[in-house]
Each structure stands twice: as structure tokens, then as C-alpha cells.
């Protein structure tokens, strides 16, 4: 499976249930209620966390395609929830700068994961040790971002 296809599937895997949950909440609650803002706000937070998980997942397995494909895959994870983020801005839940900074955080995470895989591929020749090490570092990166989510949410203004 190509990296772009993996990016599409992982994005659909969170965005489909998230959209189902969001629209069900909106239909059950009054559309004009102040809850709309809260719902979109929650949806954006969930989206960013899911994007980070998705972008790290891309680099768990060895890269098979070209570098252009890798970048396209990261860009796809980044762009996939754009309609939802647009709606959240239109509803007044979030302004453009926090959304941009949040997406920037996802992009940086992707680049870091990409860097880890590329760097260790050159340093460690033994495939077993290399994949183990890359896996451990990516999981550590994921745990760190999860543990300190309040800090970077605060920094981005989310």
C-alpha cells in the first residue's frame, strides 16, 4: 500500500466517525445554540490529535516510494480535514491563527517522524535494530505530544 493511500485511509478512519458524531450532536441539539461553538472546538482538538497519530503512523513502516510521495502523504494528512476546519472558523469556534499553528504543529510532527526514519536508516545498518529503534522513537514522540498536549494547545491558542 502506498503512503498516500495509507494517509487517505488513516484520515478517513478518524474523520468519518468524527463527522458522524458531530452532525448527530448538531441535529440532536439546537443548531442555533451556543453549543455549536463548543462542538466545533472539540472536533478541532480531536482532529489535531488524530492528525498527529496519523502522520506518525505513516513512518512506522519502511518508506517504499519517492520523497515526493512522502511529502504528498504528509500534506494529505494535513489537508484532509480542511473543510471541517473551515466550518469551525465560520462558526466562530476558532480563529485562523490557532488553526494554522495547530496544522503547523502537525506538519512539524510529520517532518520530525520523517527525519527520525531517514536519519536512523543511514546510521543503523541492522534492519531489526533500526526498525525497533525507529518504532520506539516514534512512540516516544507520540507519548510526549499526548502528555504535553495542553502545553502546545495553549501555545497555539487552541
Amino acid at each position, binding site marked *: 500500500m*502506498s503512503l*498516500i*493511500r495509507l494517509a*487517505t485511509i488513516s484520515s*478517513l478512519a478518524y*474523520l*468519518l466517525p468524527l*463527522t458522524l458524531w*458531530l*452532525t448527530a450532536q*448538531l*441535529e440532536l441539539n*439546537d*443548531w*442555533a445554540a*451556543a453549543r*455549536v*461553538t463548543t462542538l466545533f472546538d472539540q472536533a478541532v482538538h480531536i482532529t489535531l490529535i488524530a492528525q498527529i497519530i496519523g502522520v506518525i503512523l505513516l513512518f512506522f513502516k519502511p518508506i517504499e516510494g519517492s520523497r*515526493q*510521495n512522502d511529502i*504528498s502523504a504528509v*500534506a*494529505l494528512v494535513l*489537508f*484532509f*480535514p*480542511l*473543510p*471541517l*476546519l*473551515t*466550518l469551525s*472558523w*465560520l*462558526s*466562530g469556534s476558532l480563529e485562523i491563527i490557532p488553526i494554522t499553528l495547530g496544522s503547523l504543529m502537525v506538519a512539524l510532527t510529520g517532518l520530525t517522524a520523517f527525519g527520525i526514519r531517514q536519519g536512523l536508516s543511514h546510521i543503523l545498518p541492522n534492519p531489526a535494530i533500526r526498525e525497533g529503534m525507529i518504532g520506539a522513537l516514534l512512540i516516544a514522540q507520540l507519548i510526549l505530544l499526548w502528555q504535553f498536549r495542553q502545553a502546545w494547545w495553549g501555545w497555539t491558542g487552541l
Partner: protein
Amino acid sequence: MLGKFQPGATTEIGVELTSPQATRADLSISDANGRTIHHLQLNEHARKKLWFGIKPKKDGSVTVTLTVPSKKTLTHSITLTATRLPITLVSIAPGQRKRSTAQLKTAEESAIVMLSSAGFPHTTQGYGAVQSVITDLESLAALEQRQSEALGQFLAGCGILLLDKASSSVIERLGRSAGCAGQLIRSYDQLSEIPQLLQQLDELRPPRLPESKTLALLTTSQPHLAVPLYLFGYLLLMVLLSSLLKRPALLLALPLLTAATGLVVWYGTGGQQLTLWAEAETGDPIARLAAIQYSGGDRRGFQETTFTTDMVITRLEDQQTSTPIERREENDLYHLTSDTMLFEPVRYRLDGIVRQPHRFSLLLDNGQPIVRNTGTDTTPAGRLLWKRHSYALPALSPDETWHPELQGERPSTPAERLLSRRLSFNSAALLIPISQGWGGFASSATSTTGWLVIRSSTGGRS
């Protein structure tokens, strides 16, 4: 100023200004409605006394700031005492005041405000929390024109007026222009009669207008299908294209295109909608009118609406100091500006009084409703709600009668469903559409959904 206020109700304040030179000034009033700016012209050494309708904040505070072109500002804050009880205004001969206060306090569930005739409200908003007025003919005669007009509007809105030893001709004359067929204007001889009279008259008052939330139901019950369609349509396209495209990198264009489509559709000048609700009992002149102005709601963007100052405007929610209600003195207009968000409309409540709209009688003859046009103009077609069914009421010429013959339908519109829920099974009610511009404040860009409601009373006649 009455010194007391009921949370959520309007009252008024008086502001007196003098200036050593002729100048323009901005008077800003910050209350529960946010900030209202009045642009004023002050003349040299001339005293200017102005009365403004206000809605105090929860703690009763109101801040008034005067700004002159030299950027000098003068700020004054006042705090009113809150009361949960409706207010009774008492203005009678000084000798009787002490006794009357004692009598009223023991028997009536209301907050009593003693005042002289000069203290009577000058604006309709001043009567926002006032339920009854107890006064004498001397005090009434001493009222200024604006005070008389405000009192007239209070009475037209089915306010209670008790007059000390007034003749029946005076009561009848006052009752002609009052709401509820003038039944709520009475004379009394002894102070001891007042508590019982107030209790009787309170029972005759029409039911309160529906709460704002109920009114909001009329415009927000429509599901917004566009958003689920937009999101799920996008996901479906994404799935289809990912399996069809030979160059998957082209997939990147779809989220960008979809986001741009969302922006085009939902960004721009916010829409506006006006919902009116008027309810009249017993075929009287319309006593009260309430309207809600929604700005935005289905779009994000800047919105400006203009109304004549005949309207009483109250912001219901989204108090933003950045979006003031602005009134221009020179052309008697309110400018309401707001930055609105998708699905989060800014709501204003507009209160006003409209006299003599269509007149109907609704009679239940052996349980069968009979409608008659008792006015002088042809009435518009409307709906009759009876026994959980809705019937098409045709346009009626003066004195024409009508009764339902065909089988009714299930209530379909939000207004019909809402009213149907509020009716007991054997009661009947008429829903008469109020045309755009009725009340004189709907701009041409405003879509209006207004209904005059006439319900049968327990006696079977309305």
C-alpha cells in the same frame, strides 16, 4: 427613574446635560444590552433633559459616558435595586401615601414605588416591569405629553390603572384607547379596596407572551442539512477519487476546493430575519407585540440593520461591546451592527405597540368554531387551529362569518405546531399572518414571519 428594576425587564433613566458652548457629543449607555451610543447636539447654555430606556445588568449597574469632540469624557455609574416582584407605581395625595404603602405591602405581591407625577416614566421602556399604577386625577393631569403617551402605551398593553374617585365617564374615556377592552382601568373609593381590586384585575390580564426561547423555536427548528451534506459529500468524493485516480497526489486538490466552496457559500454579509409574535385575547386591539430580529445565523460576516427609533430594542444575547446599538439623533434611526458567525445569530428583541390591526370574533357554538370579521377591512387568509387540526381560513370581508366544513390537516408549520401544543383540546385559535412592514419597522431586505394569534377564552367567546 424608578430606582428599582426587575432582572430582564426594561426601565428608564433621565440624563440632564448642559454645555457652556454649542457642541456635538456622544452619550454612551452601557447596560445589559451592551453599549448604546446616542449622538447628540448640545446648544450653548441650554439644559437638555433626555430619557432613555435601559435594561440594567444583573447587578443593577448602568454606566453613562459622555464624550465631546475634544475627547474629554465624563463617566457616571448608577446601581439600581433589583426586585423579582412586578412594580406598582403609586402617585397619590401626600397625606395618603403612608397609609397606602402600609395597605399595599400587607396584601399585594408587588414592589411599591411612591412617586410624584414628575417621576412617571417618559418612555414605554420605563414601564417594562410595571404591572399596575395607582394614582389620582390631579397626578394624571400634571403629566407631560411624553409621560401621557408612555402611560397610554402602558394601558394599551393591558397595564392596570386604579384611579382615586374617578367618575365612570373618565374611566370609560380612558378605556377606549386601552387594551383588554379597558377592563383593567378602575376607580376606587377606599384604599382598603386596592389589594382585592389588584388581585381581580391581575386575573383578567392576558397571558404573558411566549418566552424568547419559544419564539426562537419558530426560526431554528429547521434542520441545517447543508452541513452534513457538505461534510459527508466531501468524504464520499474523497473515497471515490482515491480509488479512481491514477495519480493519488491529485487528491490534495479536493480538500482545498471543498474548503473554498464552504467559504464562498457561508462567508459574506449575514442574513437577517424578523419573527413577529402578537397575541390578542377577546378581540381587543393588539395589546403587545414582540419581535425577534435575527442577524447572521446562516452566514459569517458583518451585518447592519436600521430601524426607526419607534422601536424598543433589546439585545437578547451575545453582548459584545464591539457591536454597539447606535442611535443617530438627527434622523431618528437605530443602527444595529454585529459580526455574526455561522449558526450563531445575534438576536435582538424588539418590543413595540401596534393598535387596531385586524379584528375577529371567534365563537364556539356547541363546540363548533365560528369566525367573524368584526373589523372594517377585509382580513387576510389565515389558519384556524381546533382539536389538534389546522383549517384554512379564507379572507373575510367585514361582518362575514365562516366555519370549518372540510376535514382539517395536521399542523404543519412551526407556528401552527407551537400554538397547537399551547391549546387545550376543545379550544380554538386563529393564526393570522402579519404582513411585512406591519408595525412600520421591517426593512425591505428583511423576511418576516409574523402571526396574530386569537384564542378562544374559557367562556367560549373570543
